[in-house]
């Protein structure tokens, strides 16, 4: 410790956000034992991640509404717009890459870009959550770290069958999550500097998380999995997440 709390806090945010990014690399590990991952596994991993993120968003909303009502609402809608904007940017890329007849290369690049783009929101969520208090931050960090593992799995499921090594799968997975530590620090510092914006930031994180669940994770789940196990996994992991927030 160099005695400057601000610096040590920023380092801590950077550290935790880096941990969530590194967790993404764990998604490559199943390929050590699995020749091929079923699409069902991704569907159910998504369901677990969705439950954890919805649980986290409940916590963020509860925290945010303690500071005011309209601010978290506005923040949540900004979070929704933020995800939409990054998706639109992505769609433009999509068209550009789609016109290239680069078969597998295009697909591999695209999955990494998709994951990296929504890691920006996750980084903001981590940074904002740290500003909301260390307890909540720990849960959001855990939630996002766990949520990153199936993301890494999804990336690896595209890369691995196209001949990339397990190390390369893990590397690209971590790379896709690097925006998290990069965004977490400015989000954290921003919140520190402008306390009144905290309810906005908490709402922003909640809105971004809920929309990410509804846009990226659940549609894929329903496409590849059955409703009942998705419902069970999602609701139980949501309850587990609420319990964690309550007890720790």
């Amino acid at each position, binding site marked *: 410790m160099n005695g400057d709390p601000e610096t040590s806090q920023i380092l801590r945010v950077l550290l935790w956000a880096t941990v969530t990014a590194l967790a993404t690399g764990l998604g490559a590990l199943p390929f050590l034992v699995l020749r091929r991952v079923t699409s069902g596994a991704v569907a159910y991993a998504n369901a677990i991640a969705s439950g954890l993120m919805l649980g986290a968003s409940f916590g963020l909303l509860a925290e945010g509404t303690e500071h005011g009502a309209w601010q978290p609402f506005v923040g949540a809608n900004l979070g929704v717009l933020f995800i939409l904007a990054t998706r639109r940017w992505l769609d433009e890329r999509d068209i550009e890459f789609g016109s290239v007849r680069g078969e597998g290369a295009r697909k591999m690049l695209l999955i990494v870009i998709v994951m990296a783009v929504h890691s920006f929101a996750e980084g903001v969520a981590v940074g904002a959550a740290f500003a909301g208090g260390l307890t909540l931050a720990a849960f959001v960090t855990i939630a996002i770290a766990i949520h990153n593992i199936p993301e890494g799995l999804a990336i690896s499921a595209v890369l691995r069958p196209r001949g990339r090594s397990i190390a390369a799968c893990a590397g690209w997975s971590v790379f896709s999550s690097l925006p998290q530590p990069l965004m977490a620090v400015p989000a954290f510092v921003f919140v520190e500097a402008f306390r009144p914006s905290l309810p906005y930031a908490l709402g922003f994180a909640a809105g971004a998380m809920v929309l990410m669940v*509804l846009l990226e994770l659940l549609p894929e789940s329903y496409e590849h999995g059955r409703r009942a196990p998705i419902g069970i996994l999602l609701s139980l992991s949501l309850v587990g997440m609420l319990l964690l927030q*309550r007890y720790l």
Partner: protein
Amino acid sequence: MPVDRTLATLLYGAIAAAAAAFGVGPWAFGRRPSRRLIGLANALAAGLMLGAAYILVSEGLTGPAAPGAAGAVLGILFVYGSHAFGGTADLQLNLPDEVSPEYGYKVVVVNSLHSASEGIAIGVAMFLDLRLGIFMALAFAVHNVAEATALCSVLVPRGVSLGRAAALSVLTDVSQPLMAVATYAVLVAAPVILPPTLGFAVGAIIYLTVVELLPEAYTQAHEVGIGVTAAVAMSAVAVLRVFLP
């Protein structure tokens, strides 16, 4: 037992159920709503459910957590079990062209069980606070309109008249006021079971949202419209809660 509050529970539960009649609105104006509109109605219903779950959770955060969690698991298992028992686990709820009596029967059964869980949520909210209960009932009233529109998209193309479609929509929601009053009465008699009852409502309505409303919506409308509709509805409910005195 406070008679006023009991009557209020019955009254507002009944208002929520009666609101379902407005689900025939689009047809009454001579328009058959597009699949996309039905999908967005389902998304709106889903967002309001998530908002209601959030409100119950935030109310329950001060109570003991373990009984609440146990109740939530029970609520999840209750809905799962009723789907498994009725053979409706993977039932597509909004197929306008499916005309078998079996299908119509299953849709009505699913919708009735669905509103029973919502009735428990209203009863719990009424027990916690009258204004919260009224707010919850009104949120479910809006939810019921959206849901009834989806139900009518099955009923009307099958040749059911508008009046009967409206009546059937209300009928599937009758379990709302009944379960609301029953839940309220049981809670007044035995306040200790509040945490597990609250948890039951949360678990049941989240599970219902995930297995009934959202998968249906994704087959009908684009995921962007669904995501925005549900997320905004959920955050609106969370924020309006703050304005309750």
